[in-house]
């Protein structure tokens, strides 16, 4: 630290991104005159190899020992330039970036004023870099295990990949079975392979894989710690069925007094189940669960002369005394794969979903056409108490998607294709049906999608361009009020059955996961990835990754691809066995700290605790920072009453000269 600062300042043109608005030559000349600057240069692309070489050479040959790069946001290239410093033998934290792109050239039009601002930003960076201290990054051990939250296709795929690579995986699923939404689907577009057929082998693998500990009917309650060292608490909800004794024979469900009386969630409420149930025939694990909200014995304490299920169970597996169980374990990384809910069609009352039983959602249609569904795959509806096969069938696209009036501006990406698929299946099962699809744009963007859309139209499905506005009843028919926009013809189309292609929304209980893992949401309220393009499976919380529809609507191929990406990212710390901890963390001056604990309260990462120390023979409390948890956000510093806690690289003595050099303070 005794070494005299010798500064190198490097102004980037960023092609014309900066240079067309900022006079880079003028800024370079200006920088040359700033204190301790021994070299100032400008270059077309500082981040390129030759750009970095300029810096490295100056460090080696000119003795530059502090570097200012005036270019873009540090979010992108700070790691790039730090690496360059390191490779040239300089401490990587002797770097300061002046953001003259996002903060200057991109937001200003006037060249002279933008240049003046760039000068100030560079002067501020110069003022700060002179005060910087060398920092060391440290490493801690990482637990070679992962937690996967959610047992749909995304969670299943991520868990299998991580487990196959040899790491321990805890797969936690809220419902009694893995499988998720994909298990509810009949056929999958555009190949029409049976969803269950391709999914169930993977479901079975999650239960049998030696590296996977499958916890169904369980919820993550608490996560603390940091990348490499997360402490996880899971609540395994009481099934009231002895997991090891249950043989899955199903006699209990048949005997249950509530049999065929409770809407079956798996059938989107269309079929009925018992209070003791297996969500669907291929459920994994094939173990029964008692629904505590509907079981007579659990809600009223009485079920006839005694619970029927217990009476008929030959394995003696029913156990009403069973309690929730808390399981604790440690993991190095977490994959969030919590999926989606379908749009609540009641939020568009104009479609009459709440009023007319023959207005159904796409998910309900999946169950209606599925061989394992409530009608055994026969498409039948009730009209005035009579069961009929519908002949006039309409699909309505974009229900709850691309629609500001319900707050969802995004496209749900799967509805165009699932509608095409369902229209095909309907036509297949009811060849003389008149099937039309009301659409506003058809988005068939994926592999094989456009070809499938072509095929479906040629099968006689009528695509009519117009988004219906209202549904009402006339006699026994449903009337769709709609305009054929291609011929400008307003119509009242009379049909038997309407299928609403409901879009995808974040899970209703999304808040729980947000609070648990400190995740953020994008404007569409799905989980926010760390970077929309270059870090699509990462989150702002290191060590937590996203897979599947919890990050945004996706079809199955994209979900599986993202799950594999998330698994691979999650495995990086597990495979290395070590994780780096940030160096720019808060540090406490224990001599002046008064141990008030204000910073402990403020810290959003729970990274600070009070510890007892001996000060000249007196036991006193002082704050101490867990550097692995600290993100260097500076909240503690802003709140400290005695200026005793400050983040490294952002100490008062470092940022005050920087602010002063901006010339905006008196």
């Amino acid at each position, binding site marked *: 630290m005794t070494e005299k600062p010798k500064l190198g300042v490097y102004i980037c043109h960023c092609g014309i991104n900066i240079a067309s608005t900022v006079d880079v030559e003028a800024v370079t000349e200006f920088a040359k005159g700033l204190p301790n600057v021994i070299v100032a240069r400008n270059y077309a692309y500082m981040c390129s190899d030759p750009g970095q070489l300029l810096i490295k050479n100056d460090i080696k040959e000119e003795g530059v020992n502090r570097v200012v790069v005036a270019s873009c946001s540090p979010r992108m290239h700070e790691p790039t330039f730090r690496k360059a410093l390191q490779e040239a033998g300089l401490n990587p934290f002797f770097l300061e970036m002046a953001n003259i792109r996002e903060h200057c050239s991109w937001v200003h*039009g006037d060249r002279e004023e933008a240049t003046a601002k760039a000068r100030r930003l560079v002067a501020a960076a110069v003022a700060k870099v002179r005060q910087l201290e060398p920092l060391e990054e440290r490493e801690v051990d990482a637990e070679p295990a992962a937690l996967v939250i959610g047992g749909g296709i995304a969670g299943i795929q991520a868990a299998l990949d991580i487990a196959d690579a040899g790491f321990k995986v805890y797969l936690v699923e809220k419902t009694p079975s893995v499988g998720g939404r994909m298990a509810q689907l009949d056929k999958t577009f555009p190949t029409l392979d049976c969803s269950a057929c391709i999914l169930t082998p993977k479901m079975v693998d999650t239960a049998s894989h030696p590296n996977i500990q499958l916890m169904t009917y369980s919820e993550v309650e608490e996560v603390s710690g940091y990348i490499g060292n997360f402490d996880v608490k899971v609540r395994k909800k009481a099934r009231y069925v002895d997991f090891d004794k249950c043989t899955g024979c199903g006699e209990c469900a048949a005997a249950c007094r509530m049999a065929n009386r409770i809407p079956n969630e798996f059938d989107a409420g269309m079929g009925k189940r018992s209070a003791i149930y297996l969500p669907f025939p291929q459920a994994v694990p094939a173990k029964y669960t008692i629904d505590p909200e509907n079981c007579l014995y659990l809600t009223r304490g009485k079920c006839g002369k005694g619970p029927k299920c217990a009476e008929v169970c030959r394995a003696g597996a029913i156990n009403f005394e069973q309690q929730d169980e808390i399981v604790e374990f440690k993991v190095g990384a977490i994959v969030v794969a919590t999926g989606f809910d379908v749009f609540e069609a009641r939020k568009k*009352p*104009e479609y*009459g979903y709440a*009023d007319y039983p023959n207005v159904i959602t796409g998910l309900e249609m999946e169950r209606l056409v599925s061989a394992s569904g409530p009608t055994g795959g026969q498409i039948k509806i009730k009209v005035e108490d009579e069961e009929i096969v519908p002949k006039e069938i309409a699909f309505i696209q*974009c229900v709850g998607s*691309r*629609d*500001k*009036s319900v707050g969802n501006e995004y496209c749900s990406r799967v509805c165009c294709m699932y509608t095409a698929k369902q229209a095909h299946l309907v036509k297949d099962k009811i060849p003389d049906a008149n099937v039309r699809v009301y659409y*506003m*744009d058809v988005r068939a963007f994926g592999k094989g999608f456009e070809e499938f859309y072509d095929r479906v139209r040629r099968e006689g499905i009528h695509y009519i*361009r*117009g*988004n*219906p*506005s*209202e*549904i*009402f*009843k006339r006699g026994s028919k449903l009337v769709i*009020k*709609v*305009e*054929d*926009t291609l011929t*400008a013809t*307003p119509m*009242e189309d009379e049909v038997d059955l309407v299928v609403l292609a409901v879009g995808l929304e974040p899970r209703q209980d999304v808040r729980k996961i947000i609070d648990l893992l400190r995740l953020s949401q994008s404007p569409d309220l799905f989980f926010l990835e760390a970077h929309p393009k270059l870090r699509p499976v990462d989150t702002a919380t290191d060590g937590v990754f996203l897979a599947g529809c919890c990050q945004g609507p996706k079809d199955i191929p994209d979900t599986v691809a993202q799950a594999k990406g998330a698994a691979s990212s999650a495995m990086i710390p597990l495979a290395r066995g070590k994780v780096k901890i940030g160096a720019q963390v808060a540090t406490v001056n224990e001599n002046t700290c008064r141990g008030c604990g204000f910073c402990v309260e403020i810290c959003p990462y729970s990274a600070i605790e009070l510890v007892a120390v001996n000060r000249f023979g007196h036991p006193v409390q002082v704050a101490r920072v867990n550097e692995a948890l600290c993100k260097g956000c500076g909240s503690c510093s802003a709140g400290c009453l005695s200026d005793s806690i400050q983040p490294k690289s952002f100490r008062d003595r470092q940022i005050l000269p920087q602010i002063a050099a901006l010339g905006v303070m008196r």
Partner: protein
Amino acid sequence: MWGMMMSTENQTFAEKLDLFGCIQCGRCTGGCPVTVRTNLNVRRFVYDAKNEEMLEELSKLAEIWDCTACHTCAVRCPKGLKPLEVLFGLRTLVVESGKTQPTVRDALESVFREGNPWEKPRATRYDWMEGLEVKIADPEQPVENLFFVCCTIAYDPRVQIVAKNLVKILNQAGVDYGFIGENESCCGSEVFALGEEGLFEMTVEDNTEFLNEFQARQLVTLSPHCFTTFRTRYPDLNKPVLHYTQLLDQLLQEGKISWNQDLPKKIVFHDPCYLGKQSLVFDEPRRLLKSIQGVELLEFDRSRERSLCCEGGGGKMWVESESKAQRLAETRIKDAKEMGAEIVAVACPFCVLTLEDAMKALGYEEEMRVAEITELLGELLA
């Protein structure tokens, strides 16, 4: 550059109405209730009006006067546009050129001169109060509820009963209220719809200044048209706005009003567009009707958000309809008849006039009745 960005003067017609935000999905025209009887296709107007040079030609099309301002197109638009305002904008061109129908011209002139579109002198605005004990609000004195009587209710002998009965109910319930008196002026709802932009702006400015002077906790309107117009087009109004059904419902919940007589009738409630669709007041009027002993409340299939417009708004009171097809009000009355309703209850003066007219035209006077809710309630008071 800053100045340009701030200015709205330099916005084109298409920019002002966000016409480039339209994706031509057709929900506006699909939902438009009058398409079953006129050639109006509001989506086409949104599309064509993006071309500034076509505006003049578009403004000459008769259909622009077919819109009833029910706002279904705006409520349903997935991109937040208000397609009907394209039609109002085109009406503005006609009004500014001075080539409007005489009835429209006279109504607008009457608003300008007398503060009402019915060509009645301002001095007679509160003639309906005669013989009633009505409290008049004093701007100097604080009052809980300031009542705004719609022009139609104030002057039209058929619907004056709404105000009269409301006064009786308020007096009996001991509510702290005040009516405005003869200085009350039209809210401008129909002026806006008829495209008289300048007069509407002036109306908003004058009314805001006038109403803000009163030290009232809330402004209570009798017509849903005034209600929605004050709520959505008076940005600087300094008090919350209620429809009278909301206030009465509140009094009912608090046990401050009750009815002395039964009404053993089958009643169906018709949701006015300005109260339901546009302001989402659905339950209050229904609760009021249900509070009457003996009432069997029926529901139209097309009710609440899917209610069918009666064609009374959008300035249609002053524009003759060319179409020979069945009026929507007649469709409505027929539906009510078919379900066995004895009373069609409404909460809007325009709905009373249009639906009653349709009922008479269909010859159902003997077996049916159209009534504003206050009409029924007033009859049940001691």
